[in-house]
């Protein structure tokens, strides 16, 4: 009998920079200014994240899901996309949205509970998805639309390791495979789904190998290595545009809490955290740039100051935006307000209850 099991597949993680920032693979063909841009985007992302955490602690914004530790995965992947490509994020993709050109203030407004909601059609960013893995299906539909319209765009779903357990993830990959859609499933395997470690999430040795069930082309990449992520994503976009749907597992780590409502000390060790901090994506890229004489500490300080300033401005913009009121919620339920909503809105204004 020919039993199949995991030992039938080998998964090797693709890496260009090791933890110390040394090049371990072939030198990628990325111009210096692009390297610097990637790093600056990572700096701004981290500044956003740290400031957002502070603002939340001060009660100025609502629940927030920090992404510190995942900057390479987010920035590297987003930077490899074209303007026309479409992004379907979860709730943790602020760095992606920043790279796509979504104003930082918009993400602040979202977590402040503003009715403007999320999503940015200009940046080709779908709204934040709360329901785990649901966005993978929207990316499939979007890729399908592109294919149908013969537009050369890819659709990218961002999701987490935990999301790979949901039925929607499976259905999305299967639809993508059957229809040869230009879609990329970018899994940030940050090792945890709230308090559940990957080992309790799946008995599969890797997430990348899950693509085999659907005829997808898959890869595991070091998600803290911005160069490896960028190169992988570049290639993935090309393959996807040829009708080869792609699954990418970016191995990374969520250094902060799941959200500001979470206490990670309940479920994970200090040792684990500090081991992963050694692999920090910014540190690694900084070492590489300095080593290659593209960066120094002065520039680091300057860039950080610029980022802080931009963040202050974003916050000012957000708080100066008029607050939402009850009236706003009757909009956008339907294209045209129904008479029932019209009546409810009017009676709410008049302080009435009903007719």
């Amino acid at each position: 009998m020919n039993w199949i099991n995991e030992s039938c597949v080998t998964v090797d993680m693709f890496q260009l920079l090791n933890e110390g920032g040394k090049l371990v693979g072939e030198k990628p063909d990325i111009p210096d200014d692009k390297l610097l841009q990637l790093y600056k985007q990572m700096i701004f992302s981290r500044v956003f994240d740290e400031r957002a955490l502070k603002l939340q602690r001060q009660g100025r914004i609502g629940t927030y899901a920090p992404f510190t530790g995942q900057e390479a995965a987010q920035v590297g992947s987003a930077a490899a996309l074209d303007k026309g490509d479409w992004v379907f994020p979860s709730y943790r993709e602020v760095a992606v949205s920043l790279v796509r050109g979504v104003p930082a203030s918009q993400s602040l407004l979202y977590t402040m509970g503003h009715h403007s909601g999320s999503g940015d059609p200009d940046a080709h960013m779908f709204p934040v998805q709360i329901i785990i893995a649901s966005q993978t299906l929207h990316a499939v539909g979007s890729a399908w639309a592109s294919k149908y319209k013969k537009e050369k765009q890819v659709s990218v779903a961002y999701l987490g390791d935990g999301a790979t357990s949901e039925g929607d993830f499976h259905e999305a990959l299967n639809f993508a495979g059957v229809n040869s859609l230009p879609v990329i499933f970018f899994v940030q395997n940050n090792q945890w789904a709230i308090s559940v470690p990957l080992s309790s999430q799946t008995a599969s040795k890797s997430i990348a190998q899950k693509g085999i069930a659907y005829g997808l082309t898959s890869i595991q990449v070091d998600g803290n290595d911005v160069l490896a992520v960028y190169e992988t994503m570049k290639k993935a976009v090309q393959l996807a545009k040829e009708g080869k749907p792609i699954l990418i597992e970016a191995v990374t780590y969520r250094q902060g809490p799941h959200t500001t409502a979470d206490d990670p000390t309940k479920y994970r060790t200090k040792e684990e955290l500090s081991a992963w901090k050694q692999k920090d994506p910014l540190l690694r890229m900084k070492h590489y740039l300095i080593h290659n004489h593209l960066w120094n500490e002065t520039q680091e300080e300057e860039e950080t100051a610029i980022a802080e300033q931009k963040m202050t401005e974003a916050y000012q913009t957000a708080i100066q935006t008029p607050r939402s009121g009850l009236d706003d919620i009757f909009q956008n339920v339907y294209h045209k307000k129904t008479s029932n909503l019209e009546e409810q809105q009017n009676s709410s204004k008049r302080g009435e209850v009903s007719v």
Partner: protein
Amino acid sequence: MTVMNMVQAINAALKSEMLQDDRVICLGEDVGRNGGVFRVTDGLMDIFGAERVVDTPLAESAIIGAAVGMAARGLRPVAEIQFLGFIYEAMDQMASQAARLRFKSGGKFSAPMVVRAPYGGGVRTPELHSDSLEALFLHTPGLKVVMPSTPYDAKGLLTSAIRDEDPVLFLEPMKLYRAFSEDVPEEDYEVEIGKAKVIQDGNDLTIISWGQSIHTVQKAVKEWEEQKNLSIEIIDLRTIAPLDLDTIIQSAKKTGRVMIVHEAVKSGGVGAELAALISEKAMFYMFAPILRIAGFDTPYPFPMVEDEWLPNVERINKAIEEMLSYS
């Protein structure tokens, strides 16, 4: 005009919209080569090809979820759920995704799409094929819900649904698919979503119903009118969400007696909302309690019993009698 049954009328609406608008595509299980298990999409694949009439893998959440993505990106997907009972598998995509995309994005995105599904009893299907679940979607802001009872309305409402800017759940009463035919224009036309139809004027009693129950109601009413000279108003609701409050309240005030007939289980059904609206806005016009003739509060029953379980002429007659005893 051509004489069509409901299957033909729905097929005609799909065909006509697909001819006019190449953003319209059909997707679902067995809708392509097979033409749907009820042949509603028969022939469409031959005309429009496998790119526009898509046999999907067996996954309801993906069917609706993919349609959301397509719709947001400018297509007009018409997704089929093979039987309404299977929509539970896609509830998140219906209620949290399609219904809320416009709202959650502050109006920046939307999901203009149609989800078609046969539903309803009396045709001896296996378990879970006959449930009437419209009430779940009445309770889901952002969705529209349409339930035609005639070929004419089916074609016109589906045309409106496909052209609508919001997600529409279009429910097709299985038992009526081939039950009867009527004149249906060959050209396209719209029947407005959100408008009930007074299919018969009356003064003594109002009966509100929709889908296949309408025909049971008509049968019952005929007997009463012929034998007792009673004047009964019949309202075919046609749209479950948004409800046509004006028509309902006007009729309630006029007749002072309202009965609601639906196939779904009674507790928490659409009949409850109608009774509540009337008791909120027209209670003092009422001569009699508002009665609901509906499925009993059990799971949809085994085929051997379904005819007794469904609202039938006998139960409606009994209720009319009871309501007339108040004056």
